[in-house]
């Protein structure tokens, strides 16, 4: 029997992981840099660009807009996707395959195609440069994400819980409220979070249909890219990265800590 040497391949994987993480080692120091243009390593450090990111209206308004649009998109997407997910998992009906196809299609259609589509369509409906237009557009694009997460959760849902509730005399709506909904709550939260991030990060459509007053954060970042001069961009990037870091790392660390602790006895 041959013993397998695992070290070389692990080293390769580690180096590639380092390459994947590399940009973050740049963005964070850059955000504290005093350099007015892209310069690395930084000549000096201060907090001035963070201050501008959180006080300059050119940045606070887009941040606010992105949050409003993200929240609106999350609510509307979940309201539409949740019932559809129930229909897909629990019912058989004519045209189900077609429905599935339409629900998934926004995942594959390139964003630039939809940007052109909304630019002309919402132009005719007078919805360009409005919150409504962006929320409607982002809801379409987020629908597949929400459907995928919710149907996956629903498939593993044990329907015996509902049957037990019904046997005990609970009416369907009460069962839904007291049994189905609490069990599915984590899935709803995850779906909501993913949809929010999807909308918050979306750049291409926002570039074409958001106006001066509804500029989103990605659009503002893209524009300061083109001007190449605005160093607040690095502070904005670091804030976004830190948000992701917290969202990803905190649950991972918590899981690791729970694993290490001895499982508490359940009396």
């Amino acid at each position, binding site marked *: *029997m*041959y013993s397998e040497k695992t070290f070389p391949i692990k080293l390769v994987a580690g180096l590639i992981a380092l390459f994947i993480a590399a940009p973050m080692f740049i963005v964070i120091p850059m955000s504290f840099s005093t350099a007015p243009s892209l310069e690395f390593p930084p000549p000096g450090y201060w907090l001035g660009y963070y201050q501008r990111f959180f006080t300059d209206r050119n940045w606070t308004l887009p941040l606010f807009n992105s949050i409003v649009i993200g929240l609106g998109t999350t609510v509307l997407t979940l309201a539409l996707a949740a019932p559809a997910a129930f229909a897909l998992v629990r019912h058989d009906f004519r045209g189900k395959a077609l429905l599935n196809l*339409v629900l998934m299609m926004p995942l594959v259609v390139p964003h*630039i195609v939809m940007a052109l589509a909304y630019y002309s369509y919402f132009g005719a409906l007078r919805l360009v440069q409005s919150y409504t237009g962006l929320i409607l557009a982002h809801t379409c694009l987020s629908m597949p994400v929400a459907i995928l997460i919710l149907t996956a959760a629903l498939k593993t849902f044990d329907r015996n819980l509902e049957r037990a509730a019904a046997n005990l005399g609970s009416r369907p709506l009460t069962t839904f409220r007291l049994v189905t909904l609490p069990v599915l709550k984590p899935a709803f939260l995850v779906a909501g979070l993913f949809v929010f991030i999807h909308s918050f*990060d979306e750049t291409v459509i926002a570039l*074409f249909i958001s106006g001066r007053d509804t500029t989103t954060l990605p659009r503002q970042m893209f524009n300061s890219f083109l001007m190449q001069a605005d160093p607040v961009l690095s502070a904005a990037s670091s804030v976004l990265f830190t948000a992701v870091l917290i969202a990803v790392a905190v649950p991972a660390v918590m899981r690791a800590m729970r694993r290490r602790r001895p499982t508490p006895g359940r009396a």
Partner: protein
Amino acid sequence: MGSSVSRLLRGPAVLYLPAALFLLVFFLVPLFNVAWMSFTEPDTGVGNYIAFFSSSFDVGVLLNTFKTAAIVTLTSLIFAYPVAYVAARYGGAFGSFLLIVVTLSFWTSFLVRTYAWMVILGVKGPITAALVMLGWSPPPQILFTTFASTFAMTHLLMPFMILTLYAVMRRIDATYMRAAAGLGAKPLKAFTSIYLPLSLPGIANGSVLVFITCLGFYVTPVLLGSPRDKMIAGRIGDEIEQMLNFGGASAMAMVLLVATLGLFALYSRFFGLDKLWK
């Protein structure tokens, strides 16, 4: 009539109709409108398509787009495979570490990562500084070249590839490899005749998804790429913003859309569309 309406209301239709109608009005109709404009703006007919395919510049853009997507897909596959392999095969603390790095990168906005590459590859960045130190003077222009955008896109899509590969590799039974070793197969032989074939669905999934995403990539090529070697998405953007040529832009958008959906349909025919989310 009344009874059929009430039957409809009791069935699943009441659950899925809101979503279906929403997508019809705010997704399919705008999309059909693009197809319509490509044949009617400014004149009825296939003029926009003839103009596109007879322009050597535009055909060059289209070919360049496919070429770039192919390079990005292949490169990211080569780099993604070892990471997914180690994470799936050996797991442990190191495997979790790899997955956390990949997930972090995956969730970090494209713009943020593109910005990082702009700094790294820029005139005052570390790469240029290193090249100058090694005696390459004057240093080569890296930013705003096809190399820069291809490189950055590979980096952007690699986490996508790794997670898709990992999803398939995680389900490969470790005992197969041990059995092969027990029967006397050398590690490389065991890998090529057992592990690699079993991971093929992951390779197919990842490659098609990365290729399709790359075809329609707008942000990174526009920000980091060469203004001369455009990709089709950037070209569409120019037609809208600078030329206000909606007919021409629509025809290009249809070419991109047909290429994307065609590839996806072909892929789902061979690998089963539903396998992706079942």
